[in-house]
């Protein structure tokens, strides 16, 4: 890995963590959602630095739309979406600290114990990557992706049913 690659990787990594912190430091729901978006965009940029063009661009594209949709739900359901009342984003602090600490230790254990092979000597070109990814998704991993799709569809139908206002005869 060249020095420039390492520097860019570190830069986007720090940016991702920084925006992740901003998510909880702001009072505004919309700012929080957009900060999460830019955190994810920075992770997409890390993919790009590692020459995974397709995955990086896909991450950057999907997160823009997903986080925007999340933002409107946060605005709809929270009592202070603009943060004018200085609402605190953090809650259940003791539980969060424990969960965060255990997560950090688990991540560190995985990082230190996993048998990392060195950096890939020759990365396939972007078009070859897209082809290989397509073969993977439509081959070995098809069942996983199809079952995930079915779960999302079920959740969408359920969410729509919950969102529909009850008919008049139901409310009586």
């Amino acid at each position: 890995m060249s020095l420039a690659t390492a520097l860019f990787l570190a830069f986007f990594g720090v940016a991702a963590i920084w925006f992740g912190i901003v998510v909880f430091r702001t009072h505004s729901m919309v700012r929080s959602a957009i900060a999460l978006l830019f955190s994810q965009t920075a992770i997409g940029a890390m993919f790009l630095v590692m020459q995974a063009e397709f995955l990086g661009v896909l991450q950057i594209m999907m997160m823009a739309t997903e986080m925007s949709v999340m933002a409107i739900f946060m605005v709809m359901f929270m009592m202070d979406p603009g943060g004018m009342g200085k609402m605190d984003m953090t809650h259940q602090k003791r539980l969060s600290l424990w969960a965060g600490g255990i997560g950090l230790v688990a991540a560190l254990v995985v990082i230190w114990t996993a048998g990392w092979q060195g950096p890939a000597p020759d990365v396939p070109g972007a078009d070859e990557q897209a082809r290989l990814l397509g073969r993977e998704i439509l081959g070995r991993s098809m069942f996983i992706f199809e079952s995930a799709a079915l779960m999302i569809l079920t959740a969408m139908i359920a969410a729509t049913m919950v969102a529909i206002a009850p008919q008049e005869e139901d409310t009586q």
Partner: protein
Amino acid sequence: MSIAVIILALAIGCYAVAVLEGWAVHGRLSLTRPATSALALLGREQILPRTSDRLFFEVGPVLLLVAGLLSVAVIPLAPGLIITDLAIGALFLNAALAYVLVALIMAGWGPNGAYGMVGGWRFLGQFIAYAMLIVMPITAVAMRAESLSTTQIVLSQAALWNIAYQPIGFVLFVIAAMGVAWLPPIDLPTGGGDLAGGVEAEYTGARLAVLRLARLVIIVALASATVTFYLGGWLGPWLPGWVWTALKTLAVAAGMLALGSRLPRLREAKYLELSWKLGITLALANIFLVGVIALVVPI
């Protein structure tokens, strides 16, 4: 070098689209109106709304401009005349255009005004309608080219342009593109007599100039994307390639503007209904048809 040429071409294209939009809206062709409007905007007082989300207010228009410029980066003007010929160019174009949504939400939320906020969130609804109709026709285009590179997509149309090969995809893509650039009749986020300017309502002076410039860049980007995906890009007889791209792009932009000025504004619910019930069905049929044709007839 090619970056400078493309930026120059983009600037000329934006000016031409501004002239055409003036013609479509006011019914009178004036070559100087965009320049005088821009000067007037730059000279005007810049009002900062009270208790605004200053960061979003300032970043919104700039992010919109950046999204437009990034989407132009993968459009070939002629063979070799492209800012970056990515192997996944078509996907990159989508990714850049996704930030139009983020920018408009930021610009709508930022000023702390009701009209702006309604306009910004309305664009989210509009996005839910057009998103699939941008992606699915491009899927069919990439299927024929067997590549996501925009240059390869143009070259794949040497024998027959995609407008003839997959006309359903072309119609869907143009309508969706009008949604992305919030051109009438799908101009829900700004909605003239309905939202008092919507997202633009609280912007004045140079910030409004940036917002409007960004929209022109997005219109040019989408018109040139239509040319790249469906009208054979730079391909054409006699004239040099870049002239063909420019002429076709202007023709597509003029077509979209002319169509919009003759139709009443769509309601959000109607747009969503049409896009999902009719549009996605047609887009799936288009992918299926293109797949069958690609397997049976080698063009």
